[in-house]
């Protein structure tokens, strides 16, 4: 076993970086579920869409930041169309129908990716200012990954502030707790749902654009990440921001340190974590409703 502390510091940063990426992805999914009671399995595909848009926009303009800006917008617009065309009708259809329809959407997205961007995996480079490595307290770490950690922390703080300190946040929380009562109190629940859905999609798109300098984009990427994301949401507790935070950290660190400490069973570890949480806390660690 390695005794050098900087090695473990690097692995901790690895864990943090993965956690932040999982957070960006799962927070949209979990809040959409908490508020709309809607299981959107196509969320992972929206992440894939964000990745492809990020690459294409970066390639067209020669700037990473164009992709960074375009991906959340395009994915939010796509989410808007999905919501108006499909999700809104499916809201009352029950979880089984929702799962089936959004599962079908995944296949549609995968084929669309294939038609537009081809079968081959493609990638893009990190922006110049974040390429290379940085020295953090004597630990050398890829700068771009530090950027992901910082971005995740900023989004986390911003969401926490909006939810706890603003009127919109209060309305969202009211809607999560009891949407009928909130509607009686004059909250336009439908509009709140719509906003939250689009913001959740935008975050998935952002996660995709942020991920591509590290991971390549390929048609099945959304399907691959979906399982980790669902585990985050279930472990944390469906529908809560705190749950998404806790779940992301648990899954991110379990995957990272599992890979280092017990590589033989690393891929099983997150399922063990899931099973363990479900046995002792069937609703997850921080469920939206007690």
């Amino acid at each position, binding site marked *: 076993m390695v005794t050098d502390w900087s090695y473990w510091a690097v692995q901790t940063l*690895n864990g943090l970086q993965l956690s932040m990426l999982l957070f960006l992805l799962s927070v949209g999914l979990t809040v959409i579920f908490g508020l709309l009671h809607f299981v959107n399995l196509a969320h992972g595909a929206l992440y894939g869409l964000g990745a492809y848009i990020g690459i294409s926009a970066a390639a067209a303009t020669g700037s990473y930041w164009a992709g960074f800006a375009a991906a959340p917008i395009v994915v939010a617009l796509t989410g808007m169309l999905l919501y108006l065309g499909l999700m809104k009708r499916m809201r009352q259809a029950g979880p089984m129908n929702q799962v089936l329809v959004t599962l079908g959407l995944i296949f549609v997205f995968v084929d669309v990716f294939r038609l537009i961007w081809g079968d*081959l*995996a493609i990638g893009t480079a990190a922006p110049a200012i974040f390429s290379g490595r940085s020295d953090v307290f004597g630990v050398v770490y*890829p700068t771009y990954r530090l950027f992901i950690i910082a971005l995740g922390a900023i989004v986390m703080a911003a969401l926490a502030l909006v939810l706890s300190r603003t009127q919109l946040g209060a309305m969202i929380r009211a809607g999560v707790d009891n949407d009928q009562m909130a509607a009686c109190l004059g909250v336009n629940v439908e509009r709140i749902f719509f906003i939250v859905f689009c913001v959740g999609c935008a975050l998935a798109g952002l996660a995709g654009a942020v991920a591509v300098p590290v991971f*390549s984009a390929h048609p099945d990427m959304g399907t691959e990440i979906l399982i980790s994301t669902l585990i985050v949401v279930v472990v944390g507790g469906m529908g809560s921001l705190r749950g998404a935070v806790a779940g992301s950290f648990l899954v991110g660190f379990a995957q990272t340190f599992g890979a280092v400490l017990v590589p033989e069973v690393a891929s099983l570890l997150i399922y063990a974590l899931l099973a363990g949480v479900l046995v002792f806390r069937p609703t997850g660690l921080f469920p939206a409703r007690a």
Partner: protein
Amino acid sequence: MLKTITGAVVCATLAVAASAPAAAQDYKVGMLLPYSGVYAALGKDIDEGFVLALEEAGMADQVEIIREDTEVKPPVGLAKARKLVLEDQVDVLVGPVSSGVLGAVRDFVDQTKTPIIVANAGNDEATGENCTPYIVRVSFSNSQVNRPMGQWMYDQGIRKVYTMAPDYAAGRQQIGAFAEAFKAAGGEIVGQEFTPFRTTQDFGPYLSAAQATEPDAVYVFYAGSEAINFVKQYDAFGLNDTATLHGSGFINSPLYVDAQGPAAVGTVASLHYIPTLDTPENKTFVEAVQKRYERTPSEYTVQGYDAGRSFVEAIKSGATDKEAIAKALPTVEYVSPRGPVSIDPATNNIVQNMYIYETVEGDDGKLTQKLIGTVENVKDPVNGCEM
């Protein structure tokens, strides 16, 4: 009465018309390739290479190609092989990409005595303990690509190597063959990691662990999107500064190297084909592929081409039915774009050169392959094959 006669004449005319193209197409080839899914790009390249070889020989009109999509699923591959052999009655099968699919169809082609020209699947057993006279491989075996790198890297002064590969049969065979040869040469394997196959996107934790062992070099087998992620992340973690990245050449396949970008520069790998080989055969081939398909050939294009070429040569030698084709295939010998090739009659695996190349930035700024070493006529040991 008149009606009946007219009817008969019409029927006869129709029958003749229907059988006319069939008579012109003397042979039926069943393509057993992934046309969808993660390996679709490989299947496409192989298919294109095969068609090119037929056209070059002027035999495109004599051969009917029936394409079936195996995806990467062994049961699907077997079902499609059954359909091609029993229903379409093909003379020869070409494919598959996945070793799993080859394993699944092995007994079937053996029992039905249908020759299959393996155009990718690299599992050692197919031309080792599970060999049959009906499996002829013109691509490579997992061991064949990696074994020569053991001695070669030792000769370059590399002593301590860390290895990584995805945790599945091909990954273990490729790394196993390299590690055995490297240790036999006198080198030391300072650490090994097999990462979960197709679920690992972030190699960060593994790369940090590899870095901590301070190796002279890291030797890997990765392909497809894993290869892209791995090479980019290897560079991001700064391993390129301390340990050269080595591996089987799939790591820098021309299909993926553009997506890897500058991170791929300096990688040293071995493979049975690189598009920059300076031989007249290869120059002609590269030009033909660029003219016909408007892109640079990959190792998969060559594998498809050689599958087609060996089929053509077998036919030219007078083989007409399945049995005769199976007998003729192992005797085929010619100079391929990848260099001189022949089939080892003891295993039915191809004997070919291995090219050790470095990925460098070319004059036009695009990444290209610079040949730095050739290991000639690499032949697999018999590995328990009894024909």
